[in-house]
């Protein structure tokens, strides 16, 4: 049994300890917002925040997250400014990579509230988008930064979590 904080809730999961966090989220916790893209930490579709750092959940085993704090796309509030900017600019095409892009952006903006184009490109270089939405992603990151709407990822609203205290 491994316990960790997921989107502001304590959860415990009984699974093989080498199971990647991605599959703990998807198969054990039924949280499908985090996507499987490559299974090797190469594409960023599975990006989550591990103690506020953008992390590829497909290569982090369950054993490594005991006591850690995890934030997924489901943990961002409805009015989260990064999600709002993505919606307003119609960034997504197929949309499959976007939860990962958004989580990488949240991590970036936590550390740098007004990133330059080069800083955005550097921070998001691990997130592949085959639809080529990159130019709009850059515009959306700037929109959040300029709007100064960003708030810390800690401010996950518990009511947004799919899980209730004591679940699992």
């Amino acid at each position: 049994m491994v316990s960790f904080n997921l989107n502001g809730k304590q959860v415990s999961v009984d699974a093989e300890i080498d199971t990647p966090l991605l599959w703990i989220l998807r198969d054990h916790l039924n949280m499908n917002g985090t996507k499987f893209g490559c299974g090797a930490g190469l594409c960023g579709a599975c990006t989550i925040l591990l103690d506020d750092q953008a992390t590829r959940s497909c290569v982090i085993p369950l054993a490594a997250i005991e006591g850690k704090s995890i934030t997924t796309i489901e943990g961002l509030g409805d009015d989260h400014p990064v999600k709002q900017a993505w919606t307003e600019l119609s960034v997504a095409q197929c949309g499959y990579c976007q939860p990962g892009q958004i989580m990488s952006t949240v991590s970036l903006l936590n550390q740098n509230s007004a990133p330059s184009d080069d800083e955005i490109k550097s921070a998001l270089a691990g997130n592949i988008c085959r639809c080529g939405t990159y130019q709009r992603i850059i515009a959306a990151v700037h929109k959040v930064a300029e709007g100064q709407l960003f708030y810390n990822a800690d401010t996950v609203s518990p009511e947004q979590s799919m899980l209730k205290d004591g679940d699992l």
Partner: protein
Amino acid sequence: MSFSRRKFLIGTGVVGGGLVIGFSLSNKPLIPGTRKNTFQPNAFLQITPENQVIFQLNRYEMGQGVFSSIPVLLGEELDYEPSGIISEFAGVHPDFAVGGMQLTGGSTSIYTAWKPIREAGATARAMLIKAGARQWRINEDDCTTANGQVKNNITGELLSYGKLSAAASKLSVPGNIKLKEPVDYQWVGKELPRHDAQIKADGTAVFGIDVQLPGLKTAVVVRPPQFGASVKSYDASRAKASNGVIRIFSIHSGIAVVAESYWQARKAAGLLSIEWQDGPLASVSTDSIVAEQKQALKHGEKNAFEEAGEIDSAWDQAAITIEAEYHSPYAHHSPMEPQNCTALIKNGRCEIWAPTQGPDMVRSIAAHFSDIEQENITVNTTFMGGGFGRRGYMDFAGEVAAIAKLMPGTPVKLIWTREDDMQHDFYRPSSYHGTKGALDADGNLLAWQHDIVTASIVKGFAPEIMSTVLPSWVPSETARGLGKTVGGWVAGSIPINREGMNIAYLTPNMRLNSIHHDPGIPIGFWRSVGHSHTAFVAESFVDELAHSAKADPVEFRLRHLKDKPRHTAVLKLATEKAGWNQSAEGVYQGVAVHESFRSYAAMVIEVSINGSQYTIERVVAAVDCGRAINPDIVRSQVESAIIYGLGPATKAAITIENGAVVQSNFHDLPVVRINECPNMEVYVVDSEEAPTGIGEIGLPPVAPALANALFSATGQRLRQMPLRLS
């Protein structure tokens, strides 16, 4: 497409799992998605008493925007806010077929929806007006519609469509529906937000891989790495002992492992011990393929499929003649969502959940592998995490049906790894090209010859020789239907994979030859299909001729496009916006213009050079796709095609060794990332023409515009993708 009158369907309904039961008064099967007590004037549209509009969208969303743009066509003629329309991906039904198939592809969605979907909305609107006029006992001319309501212009009274839905459903469907004049459009042509923007920003959009069902198990399949190889023997004893494993068995494509979860299935698959039996492609490699293609160009049988003038005698009259050879290697699709599919077989019925470009093909393939009749199979289509042509192939549906058949009552989700996806794709074909061109004494084009050596894609759809494109298990009716539909996409240019060779440039003498060469590697539709390599060759070679004529590449093109106003317009727009010949010090420009999918695209690419490395500084594109339904989506599609096209143009090719793909994941098959994303500017021609394709047309000019820019910068003429300076 025609609409047939459908009676108010009483006694029908949707039950759990989306299976529709009940009866239809027509001899066609019940329309999937049909609700009780709705006004359903045609297969696409239902209006509920609560004034909801429910739209069965028969084009499937893979990023290209049909989920947002096609409801606009319906809402426009219905006078109902498009963003309020509830769009559902249509199930399989004859009324949803276009050209005999329900296939989303060939940049045909808007082109083919433009008339029938507007007519669907206008028909419903006319019936609602009639119902309102009857209720008020006034003339229909005294009624107007807006915002989902009919207005009595005498009294000012309003009735919602929902309130009139029961009365409207008793009326006969009128013929001769008048559509709106463009001047009256409220939504068509506007830059409206995408309807799926929010659900794709909050992670709630359901892709195929996200389908959840009670008791769902996960399957993986281990396939032979070599195309055409098979399982000689396997030992599953260690794998069976692995945690969570439920079943391991052999299916047509390899060894299937079913487990409680993906990770358990994947781990167990790694414990399988399999001996493969080599197949006929065991000695095939990229080197052998290209060597054979070069030989075929010299000695192969030429099929002259397009000829003009007297080309054989024209060469003697030429002031300048040049020749060149080009090569375009295999390219992968790699949509972000790996292939997957979910199936449940129970009590003689089969239900499928698939991220697919063609649910009818999924159904026919599932029928083949489950031995269940098509009418007992329901296909639910989900959002696709990218398609690009890959999800026009339904191998995943055949696999999951074969697995579910052996596990009746258990829902199974098949998930491919990225490695599976990259190594078992239907690739853009390898092609090898010979070009020869002649100029007269004035530097004008006198003769143009282009020979292509490649395998045909459509050829593969003929059942007797379809091994190239579709595995042998694909039912012949499916293969024939697909061949017919796809043939129609590129009217007159069957077989596919050589379209785009017929240049727009004025030339008195021309010959296009195809030389068939099929190494047996699976090939298929890849965004823009044949255009992606024929435009690379033609637009590079016309640049070579322009330079031979000592002419400016834009001036040379315009001079030979005098009778092609739409090519000319996009070329002028792109070069004007880019500032042709006005680039900054150290920045070099290349240009290309190409027609595909009934639309026109021109592109200027700017590069800077650092040793043997180059940087793409800017891409300026101009497109004419007729009337742009949503110019913002049009621009996004061109941006998308630029990035997608830059992959094989600049990064890496799929290579073959021992009949297998060498590359396996994004580490050894790099794709364009955000740090390599150039500045892109896309300009859309303001047009009153009927809308035409947009999803693919931005791609063909990418590689040649880049190659032409690199020539301008370095004098090196790069004739093979990916483009690498020496």
